[in-house]
């Protein structure tokens, strides 16, 4: 796992090595073990390395035998052993034992079609000198990031936006449409990022630049059209288990020890159990604990660790910790967040690194592909209710779904119906499943300044999202549509980035995700929805597949979504004082007015609500976290950014 950066000069006028060096060093946290640069007249490729496979010979950028191909690669191709065998049989010779070299030879053999053969998580740039062609690519689900921009006749790219910003030709400006999207969907829609004119290469896409022509193509698509293929539960669970075991097995390929995150839930417990069966050495597991029982899962974590025989480490996270690390977190996420949940994960990767680990397996991805999130159940209940809007019994299921939400328990039917969009006319909405969440989030825009409101004007977030959907989308059932939205947008745009790559690589820790093996994802898409969300039992098929590999209590427990204390973290209870100076500074009327995104008067009222302990509910909470993180974003990247 590593960091990459690069420059392509369309006119072949030469590459400034010092700028390229500055760009890659800006993401030095991604690769503390080594640095390398390749540059000719047309292209410069740079690399910082976190050595995991073949530490001695895997230096990058790497070339093929005759130096006609050069690559800078971030990530892992987990099936490189099998691919190498095939390539060797075809006459290819290898100088190292790395997966990076396999990528070079696969490109020699297959051209851009090589991507379809890779099982892994990657972002890379490959320079084909003979053809004068640059080939950029990113993995199917968007585990590893890649950003780019065009300026002054050059293409500038890097693993993180901060490395792109180092180039002196790159402007730093907030993209207000991205702001509008993030304050609706929680994410920006690829290729849009929070910076105007800086794009991300969308997951499952590649870009080629040849003869001055830039083209971008998708090479893989999430597709639920084949659903109903695997209709028998028993064989389906067996096949799923085989795939998951193999996905985990190849994700243990590493020349350094691999640990695992253990949250106390079904997914991470399964991954840990499968990993445990492949290693004779003691497996070390890691988790976050909270003092507040509303968020804490330590009892389940301890139980899973005991059952699976792991050496377990945990790190306690308090409100003060969240407030303390939050500025660093936003430096790494490179976009605002509406939840503080990335902060504890940032601390967790610090613990992993402190214990000497560079690689961890995690259970991310399962909730998206097997119908695990509450939003899927919620949508199912809402559909059921909307078909009989006058029913007094159907809405009671919503109260059963959220037993821990006291406010919701007291809601009268008329209000529940309006908040949850359980009306007949809502049923045909293409984003039916996500309407309550997105409408609630949109309310945060009341804080936008007049200037921002008028700039955003009549932009329609739903319309832009609608243009990105595949034609088959309308024909899919409700769970498939909702799963698609989560997997295509929230997963790469938030879970794998702000809660994933960015906060783990901040401490040079690589996450690996067995549930996101594309074979597992494709198989999950082919399973009937009723086998994933059976009535209101989430991940039914996965639980069957888990069998007795995990503790019965973990399998049976009510799913607890991973959450962390929110806006209250930033103020001391009682006194209402901000816990750290930066909070007062960035939320002051002066700073809010100067940055121009939010209305100073509105922000002041919200802050006072928090200081007095009167803030309650999701909207207040997301508002404060969203505003503070946006202010931090502007502070870090627009006002205070330096290239050094």
């Amino acid at each position, binding site marked *: 796992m590593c960091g990459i950066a690069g420059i392509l000069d369309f006119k072949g006028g030469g590459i400034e090595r010092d700028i390229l060096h500055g760009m890659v060093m800006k993401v030095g946290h991604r690769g503390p073990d080594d640095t390398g640069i390749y540059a000719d007249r047309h292209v410069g490729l740079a690399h910082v390395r976190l050595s995991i496979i073949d530490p001695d010979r895997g230096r990058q950028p790497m070339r093929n035998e005759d130096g006609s191909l050069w690559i800078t690669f971030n990530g892992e191709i987990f099936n490189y052993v099998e691919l190498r065998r095939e390539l060797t049989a075809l006459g290819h010779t290898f100088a190292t034992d790395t997966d990076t070299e396999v990528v070079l030879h696969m490109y020699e053999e297959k051209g851009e079609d090589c991507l379809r053969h890779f099982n892994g998580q990657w972002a890379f740039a490959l320079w084909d000198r003979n053809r004068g062609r640059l080939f950029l690519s990113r993995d199917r689900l968007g585990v590893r990031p890649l950003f780019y921009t065009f300026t002054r006749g050059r293409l500038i790219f890097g693993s993180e936006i901060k490395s792109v910003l180092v180039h002196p030709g790159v402007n730093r400006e907030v993209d207000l449409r991205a702001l509008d999207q993030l304050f609706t969907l929680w994410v920006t829609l690829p290729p849009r990022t929070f910076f105007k004119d800086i794009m991300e290469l969308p997951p499952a896409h590649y870009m080629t630049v040849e003869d001055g022509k830039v083209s971008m193509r998708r090479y893989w698509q999430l597709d639920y059209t084949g659903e109903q293929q695997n209709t028998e539960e028993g064989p389906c669970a067996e096949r799923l288990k085989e795939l998951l075991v193999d996905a985990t097995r190849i994700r243990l390929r590493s020349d350094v020890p691999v640990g695992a995150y253990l949250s106390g839930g079904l997914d991470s417990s399964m991954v840990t159990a499968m990993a445990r069966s492949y290693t004779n050495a003691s497996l070390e597991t890691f988790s976050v604990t909270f003092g507040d029982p509303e968020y804490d899962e330590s009892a389940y974590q301890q139980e899973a660790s005991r059952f699976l025989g792991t050496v377990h480490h945990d790190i306690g996270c308090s409100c003060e910790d969240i407030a303390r690390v939050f500025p660093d977190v936003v430096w790494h996420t490179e976009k605002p967040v509406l939840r503080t949940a990335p902060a504890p994960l940032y601390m967790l990767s610090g613990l992993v690194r402190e214990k000497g680990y560079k690689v961890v397996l995690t259970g991310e991805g399962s909730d998206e592909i097997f119908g695990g999130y509450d939003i899927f159940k919620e949508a199912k209940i809402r559909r059921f209710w909307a078909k009989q809007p006058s029913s007094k019994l159907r809405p009671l299921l919503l109260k059963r779904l959220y037993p821990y939400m006291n*406010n*919701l328990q*007291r*809601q*009268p039917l*008329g*209000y*529940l119906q*309006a*908040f949850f969009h359980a009306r007949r006319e809502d049923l045909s909405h293409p984003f039916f499943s996500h309407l309550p969440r997105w*409408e*609630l989030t*949109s*309310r945060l825009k*009341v*804080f936008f300044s007049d200037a921002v409101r008028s700039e955003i004007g009549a932009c329609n977030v739903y319309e832009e999202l609608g243009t990105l959907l595949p034609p088959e989308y309308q024909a899919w059932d409700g769970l498939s549509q909702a799963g698609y939205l989560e997997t295509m947008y929230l997963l790469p745009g938030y879970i794998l980035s702000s809660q994933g790559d960015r906060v783990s690589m901040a401490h040079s820790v690589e996450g690996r995700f067995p549930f996101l093996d594309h074979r597992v994802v494709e198989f999950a898409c082919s399973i009937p929805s009723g086998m994933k969300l059976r009535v209101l039992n989430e991940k039914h098929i996965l639980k069957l597949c888990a069998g007795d590999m995990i503790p019965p209590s973990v399998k049976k427990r009510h799913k607890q979504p991973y959450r962390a204390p929110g806006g209250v973290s930033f103020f001391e209870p009682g006194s209402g004082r901000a816990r750290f100076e930066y909070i007062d500074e960035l939320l002051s009327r002066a700073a809010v007015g100067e940055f121009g995104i939010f*209305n100073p*008067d*509105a*922000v002041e*009222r*919200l802050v006072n*609500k928090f200081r007095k302990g009167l803030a*309650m*509910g*999701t*909207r*207040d909470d997301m508002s404060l976290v969203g505003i503070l993180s946006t202010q931090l974003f502007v502070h870090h990247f627009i006002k205070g950014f330096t290239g050094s």
Partner: protein
Amino acid sequence: MEAIEQELRRFVIDNFLFGRDNGFKDTDSFLERGIIDSTGVLELVAFLEENYGISVGDEDLIPENLDSIANLVRFIRTKMDVS
């Protein structure tokens, strides 16, 4: 009643619109304009009970009573008359 109307208006604008009334009218539906969320209803009820000495039962929690300034004024008046 005018005083109550003004108080309610100030409460809604301060707490739910954070000072940004944007032409908000007394007859505007809180739900349709997205002014309150599920927690907001409970904040509103707590405000009514604390400030007007009325008791709001579960059966009172309907949009006809609580969904606009005008509805609220009418609801409070009825409650006060009863007591």
